[in-house]
C-alpha cells in the first residue's frame, strides 16, 4: 500500500461513514486517525448524538467484527472478558471451557464505560494494552485489529465511576461529540425517519486495516517534529524544567510518555490521511487537543475555578514554539 492508496481508501471510508453519520466531521476524522494509528478512543458526549451509530457504522465500513458492551454498575469483569464454564458433553464428561466475552471482537463499543465499577473497567486494561485477555491463568490473544471505542456521558455523573488515570492513558484520543447543529439535525431527521434508512457498505477488511496501520508507522517524523512533541508533553508538567504557564498554574500532573507516543502516532495518521509521507508540526498541533486533554491531571485550583483541560492544552500549544529557529530580529 502506498500513500495515494491510503488516501483514496481513507476518503472512501469517510464518505461511506458520512452516509449514516451526519456532521461530526472532526469526531469521525479523530476516530479514523485513532483506528489507523492503532489506538483506542474515548468518546464523550450526551446521549443521542450518534456515538453508538458512528461506532457501528465504522465496524461495518471496515468489515470488522463488532460487539457492544453496555456498562452498568452490576457488570462484572467476567461479563467483559469471558469466563470458564463447566460443560457436560453427551457422554457425561464435564470440562471447563472458556467462553469468550464480548471483548473478543475487533471493534468493541464500551458504552457508558464510566457506569461500571473500576474493577470491571480495569478488565479492559490488559485487552487495550496487550491485545490479550488472561482468564484463570490462561492468556487468550485478541484478534487484530482490535479497537476499543468507549463512550461516556459528561452530564449524568451521579452513580458513575470516573475512569482511573491508568485506563484513561490507554486511550489514544479522547473525542468530544458535540450536539449537532440545526442543519445536521434536519439532515438526521431526513435520513432516519423515512422508509429508506441508509446503510453502509464495507470498503475495507481487517487485512487492509492492518496494512494501513503499518503504513502509518512508516510516515517520516523528522527529529525536530519529535522534539516538538517532546517539548509539548514536557511543558504540561508543572514540575518539569520548562513548564508552560497554564500547566504551572492548573496542572497537578502532566501527560505521560505514552501521551507523546499518542501525539506523534495520531499526527502521522493525519499526515498520511492528508496525502503526505511526512509529519509536520501542524499535524501535531491539530491532534494535540484530543491526544492530551484526558492525560492532564488538573489541580484543586483548576477544579475549583472550573478550568477545562482543553483550555490548558490550547495554552500549552500556543506557548511552546516550534523547533524551527527564527533568525534574530525577525
Amino acid at each position, binding site marked *: 500500500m502506498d500513500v495515494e492508496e491510503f488516501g483514496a481508501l481513507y476518503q472512501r471510508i469517510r464518505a461511506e461513514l458520512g452516509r449514516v453519520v451526519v456532521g461530526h466531521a472532526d469526531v469521525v476524522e479523530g476516530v479514523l486517525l485513532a483506528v489507523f494509528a492503532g489506538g483506542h478512543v474515548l468518546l464523550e458526549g450526551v446521549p443521542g448524538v450518534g456515538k453508538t451509530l458512528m461506532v457501528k457504522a465504522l465496524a461495518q465500513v471496515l468489515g470488522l467484527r463488532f460487539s457492544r458492551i453496555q456498562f452498568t454498575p452490576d457488570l462484572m469483569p467476567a461479563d467483559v472478558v469471558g469466563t470458564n464454564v463447566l460443560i457436560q458433553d453427551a457422554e457425561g464428561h464435564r470440562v471447563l471451557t472458556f467462553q469468550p466475552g464480548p471483548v473478543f471482537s475487533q471493534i468493541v463499543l464500551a458504552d457508558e464505560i464510566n457506569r461500571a465499577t473500576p474493577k470491571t473497567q480495569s478488565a479492559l486494561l490488559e485487552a487495550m494494552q496487550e491485545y490479550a485477555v488472561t482468564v484463570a491463568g490462561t492468556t487468550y490473544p485478541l484478534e487484530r485489529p482490535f479497537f476499543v471505542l468507549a463512550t461516556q456521558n459528561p452530564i449524568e455523573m451521579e452513580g458513575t465511576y470516573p475512569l482511573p488515570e491508568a485506563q484513561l492513558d490507554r486511550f489514544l484520543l479522547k473525542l468530544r461529540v458535540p450536539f449537532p447543529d440545526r442543519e445536521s439535525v434536519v439532515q438526521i431527521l431526513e435520513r432516519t425517519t423515512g422508509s429508506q434508512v441508509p446503510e453502509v457498505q464495507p470498503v475495507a477488511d481487517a487485512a487492509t486495516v492492518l496494512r494501513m496501520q503499518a503504513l502509518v508507522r512508516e510516515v517520516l517524523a523528522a527529529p525536530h517534529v519529535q522534539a516538538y512533541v517532546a517539548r509539548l508533553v514536557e511543558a504540561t508538567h508543572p514540575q518539569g524544567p520548562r513548564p508552560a504557564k497554564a500547566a504551572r498554574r492548573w496542572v497537578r500532573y502532566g501527560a505521560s510518555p505514552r501521551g507523546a507516543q499518542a501525539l506523534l502516532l495520531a499526527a502521522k495518521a493525519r499526515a498520511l490521511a492528508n496525502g503526505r*509521507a511526512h509529519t509536520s*508540526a501542524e499535524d501535531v498541533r491539530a491532534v494535540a487537543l484530543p491526544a492530551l486533554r484526558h492525560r492532564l491531571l488538573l489541580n484543586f485550583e483548576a477544579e475549583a475555578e472550573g478550568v477545562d483541560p482543553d483550555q490548558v492544552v490550547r495554552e500549552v500549544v500556543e506557548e511552546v514554539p516550534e523547533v524551527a*529557529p527564527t533568525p534574530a530580529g525577525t
Partner: protein
Amino acid sequence: MSPDRLLEAARSRLSWQRALRNGETTAVWVLAGALAGQLGSLAFPYSLRWEWALVAAAGSAVAVTLLVRFVRPATRLEAACWLDRRCALLDRMCTYVAVREGNPRSALVNRFLEDVHRAVQQVHVSRAVPIRPVRWRAVLALVASVVVWDLVLSGATLPNTPARRVAEAVRREGRRLLDLAQEWERDARSRGLVEASRSARRARQAAELMSAPRATLSMAQRQLRGLREEIVSVRAAVQSRMQEAGSLADRDGLKAAQALRELERELARVGRALEEVPLGAEQAEQLRRTLSLLEGKLHLQRSAPASAALREAQRRLERRDRPGAREAVRRAEDTLRELVRLMEEEGALAKQQHEVEASSLSIAQAVRGGVDPEAAQARPVRYPDSPRNRPGGAGGQDDPEAQVWEGPQEGAEPGWGHVPDKLGSATPRLDARRRQEHLPGEVGEGKVFAARVQAPGVADSARTPLLRVPARVVRQADEALRAARVPAPYREWVRRYFSQLTEAGP
C-alpha cells in the same frame, strides 16, 4: 530548482538577512544610546555630536552585520525551517534535511523526496527570504532625533548641574579670550606683527564662538585645541626663521628684542654718519670701531646675516669704500629689523599660547568639578608691598614674623564660598574729595571702551574726626599690637598712627 540548491540559496540569503537585521538592531541601540547620551548632556559636562553618533551607529551596524554573516551563518536546518514557515511547506524542507542526513529511515522516503521536489518548484527564494531593512523607520526616526537635538538643543543645560557649571566656565573663558584677542589684534596691528595679528583674529573668532549662549564643551575644547595647534605651528615657523636669522636659542626673547632694537637704532645712526661727506680717516676708523663694538653686542650666531653684514661693513670701511659700507650697514639694519619683528612675533604668539592654554586648563578644571571654576578662574593676586613679595622682605629674612605673614588670602586661592562671607560688610567710604575722570578708549578697529570712574582722591585734609585718645587706650593699643599677629613692617605704622593721634589730639 532542486531542494539542495534551494536550501543553499535560502541559507545564504537567510545569513545576510539575519546579519542585516542584527546590524539594524545594533544601529537602533547605538542611536538610542546616543539620544540618551544627549539627554544626559543636559546635566553632565560632555557633549555628543550627531556626526559621532551616526558614524558610531553606522560603524557598529556594519561590523555586526559582517560579524554575524561570516561568524555565525545560518545552517541548512535553519534555512529549511524558514522556508517551511514562509512558504507553508508543512515541514517538508526540515524533514528533507533530516532525511538527507539519514534520519529517519522509512519505506516512504522515495515518495517523500518526490513530494519535496514537486513542492520546491513553487518556491521563489527571493520572495521567501527577502533581504530588505525592516527597522528603517526606527533608524530614520532616531537619526532625525539625534540630529535635531544637536542642532536645536545643543549646549542647553539644566540649572544647578555640573553641565551648567562647565557651560558657564566655557562662556566666561570665551569672554576673557575675546577681550584678550581684541587687545592682541590691536597690538599686533599697531606693531605690524602679521602672524600675531592673524592668530589673534583666529583667537577672536574662537572666543566669539565660546562666548555664545549655546557654546558647548566639545566645541570649546575643539576650538582651543585647534587654536593652540595653530599658534604652536606658527611659532615653530617663526622660531625657524629666527634661527635662520642667527638668533641664539637660549636668549630671553623680550630682552633680546629690546637690545636688538637699541642696536638697530645705533646702526641707523652709523648709517646716517656714513652718508655724511666727506668721511675722514679718523672718522672712518671711529665708525669701524663702533661697528665692531655693535657686532660684539649682537649676541647672534657668527654666521648670522646681520653679523656678516657688519663685518662686511667694517671691511669696506677699512678700504674706505663708503657706499659699500653704507649698503652693508643698511643690510644689517634690515636684517636686524626683521629679526626684531620675528622676536616680537614670537613673544606675542607665546603670550597668546599661554592664555589659550590657561583657558583650556580652566575649562578642564571645571569639567573635573573638583574646584569652583570661579575660584580657579581667579588669578593669584600678588601684593607688591607685602613683605613676602618684596625681594629680601621688608622685615628681612631674619624676621620670623615676616616669614609667617600671610597677607590677605580672600579670593586669592581657589575655594568655595562667597566673598561677602569672607570679607564681612563692605568698607565704608570716606568722605574724601574725588575728581571725576573720563577714561577714553583707543580709537581704532574693534570695540571702543569709555567709562566714568572715580579717580584716586586728591590731597586734602582728613575728614575723620580726631578725638582725644586717653593714655589708657594707647596702652591697650600697644598690648593689642604685641598680642596680635601684626606684620612687623606694619607694626611701626600702627604705632605711629596712634602716636600721631595722641599728638594731634586737643
